[in-house]
């Protein structure tokens, strides 16, 4: 303020301040629609879910406040802990695959290649497709008796696989489907990051005799780190609340092998009518997403 007032007469400073004050008043009013929107669509649903999570509330019966009994029950619920493990396993596996492959595809797309536009269009198509279509498509391809995947394995002389019907394979297979869908999205972010990089460090590296790998490892990668973290944050939010493809392909099975926390909450709420408990699971999941995203953002800021 002091620098702003520099060289002005006292009267005009007072006028400026008044105009600022008036503007600030108007600005507050201009914020009202945004605040009302946030309250109605973010704070209220979150608050209501939290309130539900503190109740014993079954569809068809009235709610009964039960002092956090739902949260205590979570601690002893084997399916919840298994779901937490599945959620994390799926998260780490998918994220690692998508970041590595996304970077690789991003580097390829960043080069001037013949047919690049066509390649980009084809590569971008999976994440533009609705997840329901993708789920149904892979369900048919991976069907152990009717699908193309085992037919191809057979042609290669390999034994057939149970794919989504195998408790041990189901999560990695779902991670692969998600990777197939979302790697191009990560690649697109990486291309954006690569194009924003300065050219000088690369020139310096090559003058110093660096190999391509060394240039990638010690120049590109460190400079890309903020971009990679942005991609990681965006994918983390989606992956931790993974739902659609699992719901379409396995509904959490076989057994509970692919039951993530989101699937578990859905089933408890809408299939078993246990809304209070389902809300407690959702609050736990929300906390988990918030912690991971905050940690990643902190890491990004510290760079």
């Amino acid at each position: 303020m002091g620098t702003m007032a520099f060289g002005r007469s006292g009267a005009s400073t007072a006028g400026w301040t008044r105009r600022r004050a008036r503007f600030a008043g108007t600005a507050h009013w201009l914020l009202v629609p945004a605040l009302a929107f946030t309250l109605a669509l973010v704070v209220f649903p979150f608050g209501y879910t939290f309130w539900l999570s503190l109740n014993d509330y079954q569809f068809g019966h009235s709610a009964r406040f039960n002092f956090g009994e739902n949260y205590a029950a979570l601690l002893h619920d084997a399916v919840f802990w298994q779901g937490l493990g599945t959620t994390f396993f799926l998260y780490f596996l998918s994220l690692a695959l998508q970041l590595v492959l996304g970077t690789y595809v991003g580097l390829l797309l960043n080069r001037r290649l013949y047919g690049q536009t066509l390649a980009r269009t084809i590569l971008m198509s999976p994440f533009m497709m609705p997840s329901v279509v993708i789920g149904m498509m892979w369900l048919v391809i991976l069907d152990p008796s009717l699908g193309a995947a085992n037919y191809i394995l057979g042609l290669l002389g390999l034994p057939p696989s149970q794919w989504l019907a195998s408790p041990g394979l189901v999560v990695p297979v779902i991670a692969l489907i998600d990777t197939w869908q979302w790697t191009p999205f990560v690649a697109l972010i990486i291309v954006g990051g690569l194009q924003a990089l300065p050219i000088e460090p690369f020139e310096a590296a090559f003058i110093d005799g660096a190999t391509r790998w060394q240039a990638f490892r010690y120049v590109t990668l460190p400079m890309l780190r903020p971009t990679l973290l942005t991609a990681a944050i965006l994918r983390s939010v989606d992956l931790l609340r993974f739902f659609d493809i699992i719901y379409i392909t396995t509904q959490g099975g076989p057994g509970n092998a692919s039951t993530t926390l989101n699937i578990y909450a859905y089933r408890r709420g809408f299939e078993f009518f246990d809304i209070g408990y389902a809300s407690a699971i959702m609050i736990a999941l929300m906390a988990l997403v918030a912690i991971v995203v905050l940690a990643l953002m902190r890491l990004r800021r510290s760079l």
Partner: protein
Amino acid sequence: MTGTGRIGSALLAAGIALAVGSWCGAARAAGDTVDWKRFNGQTITFLSSNHPWAQAVLKRLDQFTELTGIKLRVDTFQEAQMRDRLMTVLQSRSSDVDLFMSLKSREGLLFANAGWYADLRPLVNDPKLTASSYDLADFSPALLKAEEFKGKLAGIPLNIEGPVLYLRKDIFARCKLAEPTALAQLPDIAAKLKACDPSITPFVSRGAKGALAYTFSNFLHNLGGDYFDAAGKSNLCSAPGKQALQLYADLLKNYGPPGVVNYSFLQIREMYGQGRAAMAFESSNEFGPIMQFPGRTKDSDVTLLPPGPGGVSRPTVIGWGISMSAFSQDQGPTWYFIQWATSPAMQTALALDGIAPPRVSIANSAEYKAWLAAEPVRQEWSKSLDTMARTGTSEVGPPMEQQPEARDILGDELQQMILGQVNADQACAAADKQIDALVVREQHH
């Protein structure tokens, strides 16, 4: 839903009464006091599942609009999504949905206890709103009983369905095998089919955990078992319970397709329809779609699941109903739609589309008889449905309000057996323990 629907002689009596009754009804219809244009211009909302019944009815919607001038807004979803939307609407006591399809054997008790069904009886009994030819008594008594809760009529039956055994008689003949006449023969026959033609899946039924109670229940009941004992405790560890678990899991594990733990009606229909399975135990509802695959009409037999020891046969029989929301603001026009969709004329038309009719008189109609007579397999299908209606039980899982969760518990344990992770003793003990805990929790509410 607790009702075990034995209708026996009542069905026969109703059949005879109705041969005459339908004629009388038609005669009385001339003097109907119903003003079909009474609700002209009003709009009602129907929340529908993509069930063959709904598809067949909605194909004829123009006739309803022409008759009544009522506009029907239709929201169609997959069954599970329909239920999600329905529960949300009903829980919030919203009038957004006027009528919906409801499976009473699954959610009937919960919905009735919550007061979500409108009582249709006053509407049926009102001569100003219901045509004299409507004839509620024409419906199969077992199905009508399944729609009643504490004296209130919660819905009108739409169809009758239950699992039946689809058999490829050409494969049986080629392998020189007789079709099964007892439940205990199934593993042996499946083994011989496997040896005779390894490219064919000998037996397929539901393995998906939320779906398998529908087919497993028939095994349990034919072996003389019940979900609950006399004291109301889960009874899967009884001798028949363990036998049923073992037989069902063995058949799917040893003779079913790989990946059967994800199989529900869709996969089974495709597999049998494409000619890749010799036996499929699946809903009678799939008859229409299955028979559309080339060759299946001529090479298939349809029968009930073979009886257990002592000739015990208690087939599973259920029916969908159409219900009105207790919160509907337009009960009159909604009832007009229900009445039209479940009228004798409409149900006759639907029967020819392969929707098994819940009205007894239709089985006696000349049109339907001619349709059945055209193919032997249609007669077998109809005969199975008839026996099912007379001797079946609608117990598709532990009879309790939290039935979906109880079915899920059973499904989970049975899946583990199919995957070879646990044996029958472990599975039944775990299931009994969890279901009993669920009963306690339910009583707590």
